[in-house]
């Protein structure tokens, strides 16, 4: 289908740099997500791929062809807009048929493909309705059917779930995943919801202020965040400041002020001794009263929150707050406010973050 390259892409709106020298590669058939907070430039990047924004610098290359300035209507791109953008004066059939008609397909082919697309999103029987007579979820599926009816090479989705209620969002996201896997179409998905991104994507690009922070699989982005921004944005993680005390083989010793922890040595050059660094520890990797007691901190329980399968424990050690998540049936869940415990963590779960940001 299609392989997309963005090369040094930049777009400015007056003083605002919406997209700042973004370079990335999206593979054929991949479900690729642009993730980031509001205003970080996701939509602008997506619109540049669609041909709706003209970049100030850089290139957009699809299957080896530079399409940076190709008009939107000559790219084979399907796009689902955040507000669905269904034509209010046309019924569902006409909406879905719009692109096919614009391309001058024969009437029979159009009828066939529209029926097929509507079946794909399970909306057969709704062809005569006007968009105003559909629920939000149905409108969303019409928008999807309309984008897919033209058999585009690339599917672009801009926060397609953000206007749906929580339950429908779950359902639709499974639906989108199914459609994407069945059609194998290269898909670029924009969202600011990290759980959505983690659940759906083959790979994720995390954006901040127009720049790329990290690109990787959901497991990499979640398990090995590269920067404090990514770590904080992706999940409820502990990010602590400390100074490097020693570097030994694949381990780095970091002094956190309230204790010392061994951390995983970063793949890039190890930080020099004495340097201030930030480390990240996922709450599920912190073990209150764990078996391996060599790498850990003493702390006091400040809060216990029962959440069903898991229990959240918040600890305080000096000025540092740490959160741990344990299975509710484990002994650690029996800790109570005010009790002391030793929190241990395997060195490979203490990540030294890039301090670029």
């Amino acid at each position, binding site marked *: 289908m299609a392989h997309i390259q963005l090369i040094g892409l930049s777009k400015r709106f007056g003083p605002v740099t919406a997209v700042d020298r973004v370079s990335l590669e999206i593979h054929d058939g991949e479900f690729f997500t642009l993730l980031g907070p509001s205003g970080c430039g996701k939509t602008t990047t997506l619109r540049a791929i669609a041909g709706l924004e003209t970049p100030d610098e850089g290139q957009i290359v699809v299957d080896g062809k530079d399409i940076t300035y190709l008009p939107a209507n000559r790219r084979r791109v399907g796009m689902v807009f955040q507000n669905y953008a269904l034509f209010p004066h046309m019924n569902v059939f006409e909406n879905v048929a*719009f692109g096919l008609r614009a391309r001058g397909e024969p009437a029979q082919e159009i009828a066939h493909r529209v029926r097929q697309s509507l079946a794909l999103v399970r909306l057969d029987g709704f062809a005569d309705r006007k968009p105003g007579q559909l629920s939000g979820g149905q409108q969303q599926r019409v928008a999807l059917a*309309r984008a897919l009816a033209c058999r585009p090479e690339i599917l672009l989705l801009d926060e397609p779930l953000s206007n749906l209620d929580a339950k429908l969002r779950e359902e639709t996201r499974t639906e989108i995943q199914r459609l994407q896997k069945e059609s194998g179409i290269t898909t670029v998905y924009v969202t600011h919801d990290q759980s959505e991104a983690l659940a759906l994507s083959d790979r994720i690009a995390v954006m901040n202020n127009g720049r790329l922070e990290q690109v990787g699989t959901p497991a990499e982005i979640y398990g090995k965040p590269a920067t404090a921004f990514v770590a904080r944005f992706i999940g409820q993680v502990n990010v602590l400041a400390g100074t490097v005390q020693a570097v030994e083989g694949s381990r780095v010793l970091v002094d956190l002020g309230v204790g010392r922890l061994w951390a995983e040595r970063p793949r890039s050059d190890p930080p020099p001794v004495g340097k201030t660094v930030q480390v990240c520890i996922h709450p599920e990797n912190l073990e209150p009263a764990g078996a391996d007691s060599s790498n850990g901190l003493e702390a006091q329980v400040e809060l216990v929150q029962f959440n069903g399968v898991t229990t959240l424990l918040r600890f305080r050690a000096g000025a540092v707050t740490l959160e741990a998540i344990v299975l509710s049936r484990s002994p650690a869940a029996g800790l109570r406010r005010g009790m002391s415990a030793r929190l241990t963590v395997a060195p490979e779960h203490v990540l030294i973050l890039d301090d670029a940001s």
Partner: protein
Amino acid sequence: MAGLNDPQPQAETRGLPRPSGQTWSKFWAVGRTYLLAAVVFAVLLSCIGYPLLQTVLLSFTRDGQPSLANYRDFFSLSRPVNLQALGNSLYLSVVTVVLCAAVGAALALFYHRYRFPGSQLFSTLVITPIVFPPLVSVVSYMWLFGEGGVVPGLIRDIFGLSKPPFGLSGFGGILLIHVYTQFIYFYLLVSAALARFDHSLEEAAYVLGASRWYTLRRVTVPLLLPAFVAASLIVFMVSMSSFAAPYMLGGRFRVLSMQIFVSKLNGDMDMAAAQAVILGMICILVVLALRAYEGRSQYTFAGKGLGIRAVPITRGSARHLAFLGGVLLSLVLMLPHIMLVIIALVPQGTWTWQTLPPVLAFDNFRFLFTRPDLWLPVRNSVLMAGIATVAGVIFALVASYLLTKGRFRGRGLLDALVMVPWALPGTIIAISMIIAFNRPLPTTFGKVLVGTVWMLPLAYFINFMPLIVRATSASLQQLDNSLIESALTLGASWFTVFRRVILPIVMPGVLSGALLMFVQAFGEFTMSILLYVVDNRPISIGILERMQFFELGEAAVLGVLQVVLMMIVLIITRRYLGARATQAFF
């Protein structure tokens, strides 16, 4: 572990060779908007900017030499005709504003405060004066209240006087017509403000211990003030520009817009230019004040008011009184329309010495189909207003697209330029066209336009184009950008997007704007009298000619035609635009 501490696993960062034709595509992608903007600016500058510039330049010359003589003469104290006219214009406008404010606000308050049988209908009937083209309302008033008019005649008969007690003319006559045609601005704007007014604010003031008087002074009035200020500025501007009433009734009471006309008749174009510049400056200043004020007091429009609660009148006698008042008021407002219809039904020569017409028949309407001196002006006006409207629609679609969807430098300028003709009186537009187009220009295909039939359609286009641009912009604003964009990503060409997405959605707005523009151009008088030639006499000139031949019935038939057309348009546009239609009429 791939990706750890490696924020940007870079893709190919070396650029690919650009395919040929790239420069053109890039230019097209970026420059499309500018290309369209250039076309629109070219039209605006050659139709509006250039003539106005020529007028300003001419005002600083005397017999071809640079000179301040025109302005010296204008402000000369030894021959103060012009100063007097300026003074008269300002005085007339101020008095008009005060009277219109009193009448319009009183009616708005009354109809919003009280409910009684028929009050809904009566409050709608208040807007009847807007279906009157300027010249026709003046003519009807003359038949009603002028020397030898029906009302003074009736009074003479009833009281057995030897001659009619009064006859409408001069300052008083103009003022009466101004109030009749312009109080509506106050009525509409104050009504709108009252509808938005949040009654709970008054209650909050009472609860805080404020007296009724204090609440009125500190809460109610400040919240309604913006409507008054806006209406005052508009009425002031309309009065300053008013031409038909001073022309027909002024006599020796000269106003500035008449002076321009007189200077032109005397062939003193240098002076006409200076007078136009002074009148134009006043109008532009008023519009700027209006814009600045609207910008500053926006908050008053933001509130989601609950509206002043209408109080049903329950006491029987008061209800009857209110009903009677409503009927009387509606009658007074419709009197000129009734008069017009009656005159149209009087066959030539049957109404001589009687106070009321003895015979009514449809003869005059038949003449519309048989007499060329009646149907030619109608045909001319239909043609010229039609041409202007078609040009207006095309121009408005492009200009509104740029104004609402375009991203380019100079959009503010475009917005301002488009609205200039709305702010300027017809006299100025006509005079500046005469000044600019009396020689061959590249923009007029090397022809002299003055003296040709093309001056009028062009003038109509310039003067009324803002109406349709505003209507079109309003509906384009409601068209979400993403609809256009999704059509593009679906592979539709620009033409398809325009035909299948933009046009169906903005059609009601465009159509309403086009209809409004058409009726305004159809009944236009001021520019018509300055620019018409034998071959394109429009309907308003037709009325004037019939009056000169004392063929009042025929003149009235032409008037009825205009009023009926305006009524139809008002009804259609109200469908599409709702209450906004009424305001769009101005």
